[in-house]
């Protein structure tokens, strides 16, 4: 059952569940952060509407800088602005930001420990028809390896908005992973959000869970739907929303592993280096546990609808259910 201590969206399983993108949540969050602090600056590399920075730019044109198609410059210009006490948000597609400009992020932002917020939109296979060149599947790996960096992959539009407002209040370089597509709204305005805090969004009605699913990003929805379906078969599951991948909520992950002895990680990202790897690093050290990794298996993506791609790369609900069944036989 849904953990209603978190005041989650009760209409989540209805066919008319509200669907909105995490990039939209970022855009709305940036507007709010901009209202709260005049030091918030928006910088973009010719994708203002795509990454929903137009919401901020329309309201605060003097605090918005368009740098052209130049993501390396984007990152380092922001570093210079942060050195002058601004809170710059730099946004583009994840494939370019932090893909194209990774070394600039490393040297001028993280090595300098400058307060720059990096927004990678259109991450994951869910970009769909644009094809493999634009489906960023390596950004979690690229960002979580960097010292000083916070890495957040919100599960829905509302969490993306809260995460945006939250990172504006920290002093750390931060990466926010967003997706293009409209996906079900899992949380509500009342659902709490804290950087570094994992949340159990689904749990058995009674007794202990036998499987612990850890998901990050909008694919969390697939995990919840899978858990609901298997509940009918008597399989007891806990589903964790691990939206903050760094710093990792070690305590919550270890507690879930201790209870279930079986962990499944789910992400729209390469298995190598991704959220599942972060969980594996954590459990190998603190509580060695069997882990099944659901994600992209050392491949590039291709053109297709998000649904077709999820099925082909086995990150859809049916594939998740299959893995859980095998694990609980």
């Amino acid at each position: 059952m849904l953990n209603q201590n978190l005041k989650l969206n009760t209409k989540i399983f209805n066919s008319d569940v509200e669907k909105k993108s995490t990039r939209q949540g970022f855009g709305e969050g940036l507007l709010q952060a901009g209202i709260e602090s005049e030091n918030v600056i928006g910088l973009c590399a010719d994708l203002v509407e795509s990454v929903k920075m137009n919401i901020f730019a329309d309201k605060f044109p003097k605090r918005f800088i368009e740098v052209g198609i130049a993501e390396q410059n984007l990152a380092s210009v922001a570093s210079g602005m942060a050195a002058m006490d601004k809170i710059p948000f730099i946004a583009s597609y994840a494939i370019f930001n932090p893909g194209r400009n990774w070394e600039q992020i490393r040297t001028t932002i993280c090595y300098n420990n400058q307060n720059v917020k990096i927004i990678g939109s259109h991450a994951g296979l869910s970009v769909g028809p644009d094809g493999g060149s634009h489906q960023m599947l390596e950004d979690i790996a690229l960002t979580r390896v960097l010292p000083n960096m916070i890495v957040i992959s919100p599960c829905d539009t509302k969490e993306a908005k809260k995460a945006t407002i939250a990172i504006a209040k920290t002093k750390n370089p931060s990466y926010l992973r967003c997706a293009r597509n409209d996906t079900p709204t899992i949380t509500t305005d009342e659902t709490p959000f804290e950087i570094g805090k994992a949340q159990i969004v689904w749990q058995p009605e009674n007794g202990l869970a036998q499987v612990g699913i850890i998901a990050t990003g909008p694919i969390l929805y697939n995990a919840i739907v899978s858990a609901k379906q298997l509940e009918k078969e008597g399989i007891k599951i806990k589903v964790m929303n691990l939206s903050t991948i760094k710093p990792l909520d070690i305590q919550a992950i270890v507690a879930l592993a201790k209870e279930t002895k079986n962990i499944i990680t789910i992400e729209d990202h390469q298995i190598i280096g991704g959220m599942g790897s972060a969980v594996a690093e954590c459990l190998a050290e603190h509580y060695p546990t069997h882990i099944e990794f659901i994600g992209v298996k050392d491949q590039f993506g291709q053109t297709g609808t998000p649904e077709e791609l999820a099925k082909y790369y086995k990150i859809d609900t049916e594939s998740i259910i299959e893995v859980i069944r095998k694990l609980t036989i």
Partner: protein
Amino acid sequence: METITDKKIEELKIKANNIRKSIVEMLYLAKSGHTAGALGMADIFTYLYFEGLKHNPENPYWSERDRLILSNGHICPVLYASMAHSGYFKIEELKTLRKFGSRLQGHPHREFLPMLETSSGPLGEGLSQAVGMAIVSHMDNMIDKKIYCVVGDGELDEGQNWEGVMLASKEKLNNLILIVNRNYIQIDGSTEIIMPLGNVLSKFKEFNWNGEQIDGNDFTQINHAFYNAKNNKEKPYVIVANTIPSKGVPEWEGNYKWHGIAPNKEEMEMALKELDKNYA
């Protein structure tokens, strides 16, 4: 000042010579590092730290200060020596360059020496940071605050510079002053063989910058160029400074092999003797 007195020039020459001696000594003790560019840029750094920059060594974080971004971080011996000689820290500390635990890391790192404006080493990134600073100064109506950036000429091979160049002219950053150390050398040889740059000044002018080319080892010309740069309106300003690599040590001057090596004991002693000849 538009003009500079002979007395002031003489003072600056003595300081630059002392800074060069420090550079040679610290590189010798470090046993590695970059000699040619550091010695070649000693006059411009001396000018900046003792004449050009609005700064306060006793209060490095003074909010009204100008900013100086060293993009080609490998010539940091000249930055560290200029900072020490102008009072940011003791000259004695220069001996710790490149040693474990030193604030004077092999390439500048703000985590170790927070009074640095940035960390640098990987090339091509400084101008963009300076552009970000200059934009903020404009936003906050603080255009009296000048943002200086030093780049090497070989460094201009990095495409990111030209992204920064375009944004600077788009934003009309008249508070941004870029100094290109035009010494025609990079690690593998002549800049005109490795990747021909041709007329650097005309390239910047094509991108809608103002600027001029000078002898970067001549204080009269340096002073005049910085006067022009500070009083420049509407556009960013580039000073293409022709410098002699390893300036001050005739045996090394112009030789690209000194780009990335440090002197041994014999070479250090010879170099100090040469520099002492100037101001016994």
